[in-house]
Every structure is written in C-alpha cells, then in structure tokens.
C-alpha cells in the first residue's frame, strides 16, 4: 500500500515540474497517427519531423541555445482525437500546431486565434488559409491544394492538352479529398475539359474494384488522385488490374510517397505524382539527421526512411518551423518565445538560396520566405514518376496558374469569414 502512495506522489510532482519545465523549452507538439489505415504514411511524417528537431538539439543544442521539446500526440487521423490532442496542449504554451490532417485542421482553425497559437499545415489544410489577412493564425507554406491542382492541370495541358479531354478525379472522401474540387469546377469550362468525381469512403479504401470498373466505363484520358493511407496502393493496384495506363495517372503529393508505391513495386511503373521536395539522402541536412540521430538509434525510423518522399518532406516541415522560431527569437530578442512571437516568425522568415545552403536543403526544395499577406508562397510543384523502385523527377518546377488560384483563394477566404461571424482578421502594411 505504502509503495503506491509514494508512486502517486512522485507522479504528481513530476507532472507539475514537467509542466513548469516546459516554459524553459521550445514546446513543439505534433499530431501523429501510427495506428489505423493511415499508419504507414503517418509514421513517415512523424519520424521525419521528430528526427529533424532531435538533430537540432544534438547538433546545435536546440535553437538559439534553447532545447526543443517535441511531443507526439496520437490521433489515428480522427478529428475527435485531434481536438483532444489540441486541448491537451492548452496552457502548456505550444509554439505551433502541426495537425497532419485537413480534417483536424478544420476543427481547430477557429480555436487557434483564441489561444494565440499559429497552425502550420505544410501543403495541406484549408487552401483559403493562404490569404494572410483573413487567416492571421493559419499558414500553408509552400503551396496549397488550389495551387497544386492548377500545377497538375498545367502539366497535363503540356502533355496532351486539356481541350476536349475527360479527367477522372478519385479522392478520399473527407475534407482533404474535397478541397480541390472548386478548381475543377472553375477551370473545366475555361479549358474545355470535362471531369467526373469518384469519392472513395474511408472504409472502402481497400475495396476499390467497383470504383475502377466505373473508370473503365467512363474511359477518362487522365486520372488525378487525392489519396492518403492505404487507399493509394490499393488504387494503383486496381488501376493495373483494370488495365488503365499508369502514365496517365497522376497523384498529388500525398498520394505519391515511397510507402504508397513500395507494396505495388515493379507493376506500378509509370505512375506519376506531384511533389515540392526532392528525394534522396545526398543532401547535407539529411546526412546530418542520419549522422546525429538515425545512426545513434535515437529514432523510431526504419532504415528505408531517410531519403524517401514523405520523410524528406517532414524534415523540411520541421526546418520551416525551426527557421520561424529562430526568426522570432531574433525579432523579439527573447530566447523563450510564445505563440504570438512564433506568428511573427512565420511571417518574416527568409529562406533564400544562401540560407538553404547553410541548412543543407539546396536542390531539395525551392527557396521561400514568409509574408504577412501571403501565407502560402504560391510555390511550384514538379512531377516525378515511379520507375518500379524509386521516384524519378521528370519535370521541372511548374508554377501554379497564379491569377486563377489567387482569385479563388480570396473568394474562398471571404466566404469562410462571412460564414463565421466575429472572425478576427488582420491588415498587413
């Protein structure tokens, strides 16, 4: 009996101290999912993110001399659990939230301004968040779903032209999957192509035979996929079974990871995917992560992790946050910063070619810098193709159709603000 009482006491005290202790650290929580149908992709995101920040702690002793405390919170890609994770960090001064799911982002988007904590949804989340003035607390560097869809359509236009073509859009039935549909609605009449929608419900992710029979019925010229988790390999396998030409099948950057095509292997040759970060381990940043973290076993990453699409992208996501923290420390002069300072950091960081070289990301990603008006950066995406074993870059950077995308983003942002009365906005100078 005595032992348990002492145990409880110790537990309580460490808890209080750990809460206190976090003020001395830079707390960067990350919502992950290592369980459930999206586990394969979620594990890659989580490992890349955590490894990079651990590397900063090991190599430079944190940022500006202050250690980074990165904490994982399991959501299983479920909105309810995401809200629970968000609530569990209230009052612990988290610097930035990384939901890793558009569904969760939509849930916490309204809460973030109240708790003065910015949200960074790198390449996902609500596209309208690109408009910095309407969404002061939400960022989606380097590019949003609207921009990406326009880049992919530009690529298709370059390959076979869009006029008179039929495009099939297969997507995961969720906030994530439905996000780019307005782009198709808008551009179809403009470019004279027709499209049909193929929603895949979460639980049918593994049973797509009827979806691909409909594809055989509709006979599209191109297929675009907004998939995630176990849906991706199943879709490519089903496409092969339905004898659909894989080189006319383009997935977005979340539907074209190594983990998605490995189970398909050689048969998946020809499948294309868009991305904004290169693969491979010969970048100095990746080498540092391997040297300081992976080789020392301070990670959960499998050996095939570093260099893969999703892992490198997660490294870049962590690097963006680290750079924003450093910028916030410089602007405010404070070592331990809070959510508000972080927001300033996210709007004023500069990652030009020189800075990229210092960090060791040259050639992996395009340079980008924060701005008050534009929380997206309208970054370009390039197309890579699966050659059976690895991804090969087959196109150079394709910038989005800037005017069309920006105009749609402004409209979407305005609509969001009007739906939610009392929505706080900001005006940039």
């Amino acid at each position: 009996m005595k032992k348990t009482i002492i145990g409880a006491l110790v537990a309580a005290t460490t808890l209080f101290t750990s809460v206190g202790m976090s003020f001395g650290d830079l707390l960067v929580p990350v919502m992950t999912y290592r369980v459930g149908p999206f586990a394969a992709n979620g594990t890659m995101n989580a490992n890349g993110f955590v490894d990079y920040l651990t590397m900063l702690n090991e190599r430079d002793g944190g940022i500006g001399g202050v250690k980074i405390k990165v904490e994982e919170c399991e959501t299983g890609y479920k909105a309810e659990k995401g809200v629970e994770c968000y609530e569990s960090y209230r009052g612990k001064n988290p610097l930035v939230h990384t939901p890793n799911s558009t569904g969760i982002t939509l849930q916490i988007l309204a809460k973030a301004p109240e708790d003065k904590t910015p949200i960074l949804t790198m390449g996902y989340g609500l596209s309208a968040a690109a408009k910095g003035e309407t969404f002061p607390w939400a960022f989606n560097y380097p590019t949003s779903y609207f921009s990406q869809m326009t880049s992919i359509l530009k690529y298709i236009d370059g390959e076979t032209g869009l006029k008179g073509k039929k495009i099939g859009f297969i997507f995961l039935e969720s906030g994530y999957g439905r996000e780019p549909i307005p782009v198709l609605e808008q551009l179809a009449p403009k470019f004279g192509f027709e499209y049909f929608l193929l929603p895949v419900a979460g639980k049918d992710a593994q049973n797509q035979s009827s979806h691909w029979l409909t594809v055989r019925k509709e006979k599209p010229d191109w297929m675009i996929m907004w998939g995630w988790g176990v849906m991706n390999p199943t879709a490519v396998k089903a496409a092969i079974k339905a004898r659909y030409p894989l080189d006319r099948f383009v997935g977005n950057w979340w539907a074209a990871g190594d983990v998605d095509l490995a189970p398909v292997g050689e048969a998946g040759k020809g499948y294309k995917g868009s991305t904004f970060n290169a693969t491979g381990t010969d970048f100095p940043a990746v080498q540092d992560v391997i040297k300081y973290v992976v080789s020392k076993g301070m990670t959960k990453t499998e050996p095939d992790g570093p260099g893969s699409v999703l892992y490198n992208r997660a490294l870049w996501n962590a690097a963006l946050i680290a750079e924003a923290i450093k910028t916030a420390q410089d602007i405010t002069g404070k070592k331990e910063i809070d959510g508000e300072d972080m927001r300033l950091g996210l709007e004023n960081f500069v990652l030009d070619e020189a800075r990229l070289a210092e960090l060791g990301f040259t050639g992996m990603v395009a340079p980008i810098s924060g701005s008050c008006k534009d929380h997206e950066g309208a970054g370009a995406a390039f197309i890579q193709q699966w050659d059976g074993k690895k991804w090969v870059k087959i196109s150079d950077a394709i910038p989005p159709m800037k005017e069309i995308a920006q105009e749609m983003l402004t409209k979407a942002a305005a609509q969001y603000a009007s739906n939610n009365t009392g929505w706080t906005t900001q005006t940039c100078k």
Partner: protein
Amino acid sequence: MDFLTYLLTGIFLTPFAEMIEMPDLFFQALWDGFVSGTLYGLIALGFVLIFKASGVFNFAQPILVVLAALALISFYKMGIPAWLSVVCVLIMFYALAWLIERLILRKLVNTDGNILFMSTVALSFIIIGAAQWIFGGRPSSMIHKELGFPTGSLEWPMFGGGVYFEMLDISAAVVAVLLILTLGLFFSRTKIGRGLRAVADDPQAALSVGISLNQIWVIVWFVAGVVALVTGIFWGARSDVSFALQIIGFKALPVLIIGGFTSVPGAIVGGLMIGLGEKIFEIYWGPLLGSGVEGWFAYVIALGFLLFKPQGLFGDKIIERV
C-alpha cells in the same frame, strides 16, 4: 418535370443501355462481384460455424481474419518460410481457441444469447488492441506469391474490350469451394460434426449424451480460425492487409440474414447474392445516387429479407411459443 424523366431514365434506361453497350464491362463486373461474393461467403462461413456449433454469434470473426493475415505476414517477416508460417498461425489459432474457450465460453455456458454476443464484441476489442500492439498498425502486403498461389491474370477478349480474370481470384474461388465442401461433409458425416450440431441445439442435452462441450468448442473456434486464415490470405492479396478489413467483414452480417444462420450453403449463396448485387448496383445505379452506395446496399437487401423472411433462405424457422 425533367427531373422525373431524368430519374426514370436513370433507373430504368441508362443502366441497361450501358450493360448492352459494353458487355465486357458487365461480365467483368459479374466476375468481380462473384469473387467478392465468395470472400463475403467465407467470412459468413466463419460466423455460421461458430453459431451452428455453440449458438454464439461470433462478432469477432472479421477481426480474426485481420489477425490471421497480420500474423502470417509477421511470421514470414521473421524469416520463417511461407508454408511453415501458415502452420505457426494455425498453432496460434489453436492456442487462441483454447484460451477463448477456457476464459470466456466456459464461464458463460448457459447465459442468454445477448451476453455471449456482447462477450465476442469485447473479445474483438481485445484482439484489435493486441494485434495493433504486436504486429504494428502499418498495412502490409500479403505473401500469397511466396505461398505459391499463381499471380498474373487471364484475359478473355470480348467485344473489343476484354474480361480479365486474376489468377489469384480464381484460386480464391477454388479454395473457397473446396473449403465449403469439406465443411459441409465435416458437419454431416463425421462424429465430431454431428456432435457439433447436437451441441448447437441444446448444450445440456449434448452434455448428458456424453459429448464433451469444451473440447467441441475449442475445435469449432479453431476451424473458424482456419476459415479466417483462408479469407485473410485471399482478401489480403486483393488489397493490403490492414484493420479496415474488419469493417468490410461486417458485410457478412447481411449475408447471414439472407442465407440463414445455420446453413453452410446459405452462407455462400447469400455471399454471392450480396457480392453480385452490390457490384452491379454500384456500377450501373450508383452514379445516379452519388456513388458509394455499396456501403449500405447489402444491409438494405438484408432488411428486405428480414421483414418478409426472417429466417433467411435456408435457415430453420424460428417459432415463438407462448
């Protein structure tokens, strides 16, 4: 007015026109429906086995399928050769069956059906937690090639297009038919089979006749495990092995309603009906309703059966006495 015409043509005209216009697609849909029908039937078979022999509606059967597939892959990854890992999985299932009987069934022998049913729901939660913990949550690809099942596909060119038969699906159908025959014989001819049927009707009576209840139940759960393994292999081969298979496993419930709870042929016929019906309805009538109708189609058919023929096609009549 045009909405009405749109609706009527959508329901009666366009689907049949499409069927005639692209017959190869129609046959491909039939074949796909047949294959998923056999797999639904196999899962339903697992349910029927345990219900027939112990009166327990085993809600954990779909998760047993996932467990079997995950275990097989993990054993293989540990370097155990393919067929040996199949044996390991079978041993694991025997131990599991023994444990379930000892810890759960023995204590709940003569409680009413609902409590037994709830215990299998609880069991499925335990298995989900344990399987995710031990085998990890990551979906992994099935090792059917290593098991020697043929891959690649046959093509039957027809009307310009072609109907493609995956060798894997063919072997799945063949193995399913073999399994059903053996089980059908097992139940009717062998001593244990008759013992199982006796136990299902009235456990006390079976006990008085000298059939050892516990031993029978262990066998039954083990056989259900074997069916789960076969289903897991073929279902896992069609699409990666992950916990989403469990939700698809629930499709076996409507199959049971249609085929009746206690009949082995009923499970298979019910499975085929659902498989074929679902596929055809989704492809030809799906777009009219915004597609994705496969999710509830099977249940609505089952509901229809429930209201007019509750005991299903082959099940025995349920008689209510005052």
